[in-house]
């Protein structure tokens, strides 16, 4: 039984192939087309999934789309009716898009499939549609290690739902409660993302990264005026502060008046006000998430919790939720955003519509470490790199690990392209930039000379699973970098009064632990635990680094520059290597040093991608 899940047309198009309940392949379209958050029909991701499974299109039993266009259209109409005559401009802008394309999504998808695979099969008959939040819930529960769990999904909006509570048991999943549009925690966070001058749908991470620089001075104003949060975590927004139902912006003049000024202009200087706003919305989000989780625990009596939806990518809130000890265990879908909807849609069809049993997860869960994307054989890598004019040497695994660990210990910034590509927004040691976290200058160097991104943004650590409790205040698995924990007290350095008085980025430049490159200004770190069973090669690398340096931690950031999708092919990795100040590149068993490459191949790379 082969089921293809698809998400597309809004943001983060992706495809996933499930065979007899096993996730065989999953990838986001952006990785192939090199367009960040590409929403186009995922032609290349689908082709990859079929190739990975070694099947022809005719062997697909069902193709499942991750949301329901008619239901979304219903929301669109009823929202405009509720606000009419306000919102005519927005209506006039979006309606033609719907009437031309979105309303006819079923035939659009069938046509796209026919264009891909011909008309020997009536694709319409194999096409199914899953509700957006149901897809999220399925992606959170079915791959989790739990036989029973409460499932909480939170995002901007699906069709109507913005937050849902479900209970999963065996191969069943039943939705118990929902909060509907326009009341949305994701859209509230996006409103502040917009207001602090970042891009909606991609800048939310930056707001989260900015929050520790500020004080939650506006949290009370938000709770008193904008959002009414009940004891069980259910909430309602005062829509008079927002413009997203009727206009082309997220917030309006009343919102500006409450927070004392207009939105920050994109790319202009960040001030204390933006930092305080970020801290405030982060604090409110955490409060709502924790209240929701408490309500869920009380209502369902479940001991385990699964999370998905864009808000579940807020790893700071996830870390706080973990420390509240409301649930015994928490599992978060690594592709918690819309890309993961493709996975949930396919799994939901298999287990619920076809009533197929779940197999118990072997190892941590059924996600295979989220290494579900393409990989390349050494012969293929050699051919591709040679074709690009790269100068490289090929080593055995042992030699490669030794040389790479040594280069990292020597302070080199290193590109690491190894095994299958990750599914989801985080690089987890398949397509990563790695560095020594002990270096006090590494954070600045990576931000400004390798990633070309804002200097206030921190980096995340990868740590051997067995060493996590000694280095961070956390004892659980965090294989997908979705939990934030503080650096262990004995690894921290106390700040002097003078250092504490520093402002903004100056604060980040003061080493505050023995691993300063991955320690944020509040001592927090977005931890990835590395497990031998899911990524043995990466595990071995860190282990060897630990033997050399005594430190079982590496800086792990995604292999890309600002605005670029994470690299996919060896050529992408080589291009990024030559366009940045990375010192060393590892692709499979090939090792490249920048000093060996022809300087004529260096290109001005950072201008190649639109800023995110």
């Amino acid at each position, binding site marked *: 039984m082969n089921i293809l899940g698809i998400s597309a047309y809004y943001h983060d198009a992706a495809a996933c192939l499930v065979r007899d309940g096993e996730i065989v392949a999953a990838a986001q379209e952006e990785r192939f087309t090199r367009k960040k958050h590409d929403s186009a029909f995922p032609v290349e991701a689908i082709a990859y999934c079929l190739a990975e499974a070694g099947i022809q299109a005719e062997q697909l039993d069902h193709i499942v789309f991750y949301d329901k266009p008619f*239901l979304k259209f219903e929301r*669109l*109409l009823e929202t405009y009716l509720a606000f009419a005559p306000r919102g005519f401009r927005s209506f006039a802008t*979006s*309606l033609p898009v*719907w009437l031309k394309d979105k309303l006819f999504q*079923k*035939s659009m998808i069938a046509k796209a499939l026919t264009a891909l695979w011909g008309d020997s099969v009536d694709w319409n008959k194999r096409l199914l549609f899953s509700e957006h939040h149901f897809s999220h819930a399925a992606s959170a529960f079915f791959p989790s290690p739990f036989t029973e769990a409460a499932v909480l999904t939170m995002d901007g909006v699906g069709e109507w739902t913005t937050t849902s509570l479900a209970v999963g048991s065996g191969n069943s999943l039943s939705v118990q409660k929902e909060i509907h549009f326009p009341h949305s925690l994701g859209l509230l966070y996006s409103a502040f993302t917009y207001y602090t001058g970042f*891009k909606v749908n991609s800048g939310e991470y930056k707001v989260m990264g900015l929050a520790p620089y500020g004080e939650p001075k506006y949290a009370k104003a938000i709770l008193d005026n904008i959002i009414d949060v009940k004891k069980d975590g259910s909430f309602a927004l005062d829509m008079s502060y927002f413009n997203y139902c009727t206009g082309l912006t997220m917030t309006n003049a009343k919102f500006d008046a409450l927070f004392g000024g207009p939105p920050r202009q994109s790319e202009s200087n960040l001030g204390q006000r933006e930092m305080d706003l970020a801290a405030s919305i982060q604090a409110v989000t955490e409060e709502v998430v924790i209240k929701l989780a408490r309500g869920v625990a009380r209502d369902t009596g479940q001991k385990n919790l699964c999370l998905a939806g864009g808000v579940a990518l807020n790893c700071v809130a996830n870390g706080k939720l973990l420390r509240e000890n409301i649930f015994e265990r928490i599992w978060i879908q690594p592709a918690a955003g819309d890309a993961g909807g493709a996975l949930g849609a396919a799994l939901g069809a298999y287990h619920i519509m076809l009533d197929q049993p779940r197999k118990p997860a072997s190892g941590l869960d059924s996600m295979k470490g989220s290494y579900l994307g393409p990989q390349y054989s050494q012969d293929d890598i050699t051919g591709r790199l040679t074709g690009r004019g790269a100068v490289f040497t090929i080593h055995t695994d042992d030699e490669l690990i030794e040389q790479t660990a040594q280069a990292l210990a020597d302070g080199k910034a290193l590109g690491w392209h190894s095994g299958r590509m990750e599914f989801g927004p985080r690089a987890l040691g398949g397509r990563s930039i790695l560095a020594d976290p002990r270096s006090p200058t590494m954070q600045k160097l990576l931000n400004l000379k390798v990633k070309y991104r804002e200097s206030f943004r921190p980096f995340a650590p990868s740590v051997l699973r067995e060493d996590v409790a000694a280095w961070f205040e956390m004892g659980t698995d965090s294989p997908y970098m979705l939990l934030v924990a503080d650096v262990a007290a004995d690894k921290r350095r106390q700040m002097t009064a003078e250092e504490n008085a520093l402002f903004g980025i100056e604060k980040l430049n003061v080493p505050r632990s023995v691993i300063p490159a991955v320690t944020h200004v509040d001592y927090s770190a977005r931890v990835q635990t590395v497990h031998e069973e899911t990524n043995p090669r990466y595990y071995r690398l860190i282990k060897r680094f630990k033997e050399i340096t005594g430190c079982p931690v590496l800086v792990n950031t995604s292999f890309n520059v600002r605005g670029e999708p994470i690299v996919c092919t060896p050529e992408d990795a080589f291009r990024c290597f030559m366009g940045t100040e990375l010192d060393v590149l590892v692709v499979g068993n090939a090792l490249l040093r920048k000093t060996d490459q022809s300087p004529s191949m260096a290109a001005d790379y950072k201008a190649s991608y639109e800023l995110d």
Partner: protein
Amino acid sequence: MNFVSELWAFLRVRKKLWLMPIIIVMVIIGGLLVLAQGSVMAPFIYTLF
């Protein structure tokens, strides 16, 4: 035709038949807008709808 019957079935199941006249009017207005505009703008808020 298939599309119309699916839309009809959807509205019946959702008990939203009252939306039908509105949809018809909107299709007419939308059609005019498409003709008037020539191209379709999709603002950033597009992702919501």
